[in-house]
């Protein structure tokens, strides 16, 4: 381990020069290559980035070529320890690095293959910032420069993000619609028709001459029969009405069982009286 450190240190020492020097690159191009050949080539430099966003089809790779040189040092040492192309999503700041293949003479090549771009960086219309990092041990100033943006062409739905803890969207239950009611006016109109019909019917009875003309005579001959009969019928109607309003079935049974014998006894007497009158032809 110690030996290794000494080795690295001596290497760094021979790389560094007493003058202040810096890593840089020149002759840089970005080519979009497909199996069929090169689609397009763009020039850039450390100070002049790519003008436009370069689109990268899913079957292609972006090949960066440049010549690394360290200012004021001999050509033989033009090989930095760190020569990376970094692609970064400017929104999420997630990044991925691709190592450059640097030759002794400083010629470097990085392939950013669409297939090797992590899925976290892919998405519809998601341009990625490309940076070149050149740095090494020693005192030479490192270089990190943004050279432009590439846009991996992504068709399809947005990939689902990773599972993370956090608040979820609110859910509010949607109730089934309430039953709809007709307006009271229409309902009352039809009720009025019903009432009118009844009035017309009763009116026609009266028009035909129906009248309780025998009332005094009937009451005189069978007072218990008629009064009891009508009173019990009305009482039974009242009992049913109470049940409709909310009384219990047991109360109703009790009331009806009390009223039914009265209605039966008084009713039979009343009807007997009616029969006697009818037989007399009245």
């Amino acid at each position, binding site marked *: 381990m110690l030996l*290794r450190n000494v080795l690295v240190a001596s290497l*760094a020492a021979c790389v560094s020069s007493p003058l202040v020097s810096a890593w840089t690159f020149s002759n840089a191009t970005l080519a979009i290559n497909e199996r069929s050949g090169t689609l397009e080539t763009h020039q850039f430099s450390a100070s002049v980035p790519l003008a436009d966003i370069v689109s990268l089809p899913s079957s292609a790779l972006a090949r960066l070529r440049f010549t690394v040189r360290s200012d004021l040092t001999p050509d033989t040492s033009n090989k930095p320890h760190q020569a*990376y192309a970094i692609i970064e999503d400017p929104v999420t700041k997630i990044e*991925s*690095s691709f190592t450059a293949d640097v030759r002794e003479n400083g010629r470097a090549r990085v392939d950013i293959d669409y297939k090797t771009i992590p899925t976290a960086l892919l998405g519809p219309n998601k341009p990625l910032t490309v940076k070149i990092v050149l740095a090494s041990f*020693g005192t030479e100033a490192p270089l990190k420069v943004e050279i432009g943006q590439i846009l991996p062409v992504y068709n399809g739905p947005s990939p689902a993000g990773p599972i993370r803890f956090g608040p979820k969207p609110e859910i*509010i239950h949607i109730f*089934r619609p309430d039953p709809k009611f007709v307006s009271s006016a229409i309902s009352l109109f039809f009720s009025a028709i019903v009432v009118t019909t009844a009035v017309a019917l009763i009116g026609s*009875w009266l028009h035909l001459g129906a*009248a309780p003309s025998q009332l005094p005579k009937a009451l005189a001959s069978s007072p218990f029969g008629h009064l009891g009969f009508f009173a019990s019928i009305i009482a039974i109607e009242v009992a049913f009405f109470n049940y409709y309003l909310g009384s219990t079935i047991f109360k109703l049974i009790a009331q009806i069982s009390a009223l039914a014998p009265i209605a039966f006894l008084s009713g039979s007497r009343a009807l007997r009286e009616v029969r006697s009158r009818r037989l007399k032809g009245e």
Partner: protein
Amino acid sequence: MAHFGRRIMQLFSLALVALVSVATALSTSGSKLLVVLDPSIKKQDYSIFFDDLKGRDFDLDFRAANDPNLSLVSFGERAYDQVILTLPPTQKALGPNLLAKPLLEFMTSGGNILVLLNPTGHALGSVREFARELGIHLPFRDTKLVDHFHYDAATSPELHDTVILDPATDLVAVPHLEVDSTKKILYSGSGFALDNNHLLFPILRASDTAYVYDPAEELLESDAPFVSGTQAYVVAGIQARNNARAVIIASSSMLSDEAFNAADSANRELAAGITKWTFQETGVIKLKSVAHKLANTVEENPQIYRVKQDIIYEAEISEWIDDKWVPFVADDVQLEFTMLDPYYRLNLTAVGVSGDSEVYATTFKAPDQHGVFTFNLNYKRTGLSYIDDKRTVTLRHFGHNEFLRSFEIPNAYPYITSLVVVVVAWMLFIVLWVFSGPEKAPEKKTQ
């Protein structure tokens, strides 16, 4: 005599309770701390770190890994509440008590573990396996994290392996650590990679130009870094589903007196923050009580509700700050009302303080679907202890006497009117039929 004996026992237990309550003054999970210290690591090099822990009422028990009496478990119970594990610089086994399985079982029973990897990046197979179970992938031995952009020129002018991390950009778990962002964090060691796992709690990562390289394989150029840029982490933890915590620090040198005493160093604050989180002193919340009831009633937690009734739900949450429980304030506490799927997911609003807890409440109308529903308070946030509370209730449908009456429904007016008209007309008909007759006796018939 027996009475006297009982009194003595009472006094004794009182004293014991007092002792225990003093001893557990700062950590919510206990003060018994085992430090597995490798002989290669000198305790005096880390004196400030250990003194800080003692100052926080921890009861430190230093043991070597090969101590025959060392055991994380005694009589089936956890023997310690917390463990700090340091690793040797070279290949050496830690013994059967510190294999991955006992360490994981220790966490399963609620213990917290802080692992300090050796600065050489050497991790034993057992620790590597333990870390992999947590979703942390440790680097190969002798690898180094270097950053040619942010390094300490005084200690590593050539090798750039003492890197400077900026708390403002590299600290991920900012809300749970109090670190002055104008200071710097000194670090030398390796870096590890993390799984994409939501239980993980990343704390400190490397800067975007850093990378891990292996001096043996990549002496001249870094052609296949183990991990690079902000994907390289140097401190990360995990909170298991039972709220037990484990943190791995990629290099123990970060906690040395040398690093603490360096000019402008934030390492000491960071170490305090990391150990406080690991040993359940910060980021600890608890659910104090839950109550649900019908609106405008007093009876709490009934077993049954009816559909479309207004329900009030209240939960009280406290947070452990320093040495006491205080109200926990947040704006993202959510309640789910579920039957298989959530019918409601509602943000709870903080409605006030009750003693040492904050009251979160909401009111909602029970859905128009009868069945067995669950009030599910599932509050899980990275860095905070998990709260997961489920209360099951029945939601019944309308009773036969709970619907609208027919006279309240306009559509029914014609029917009700018809009924009344029939009754009245029938009564009238009976009267007419019974009492009607010719005005005079039908004498004309005899003609």
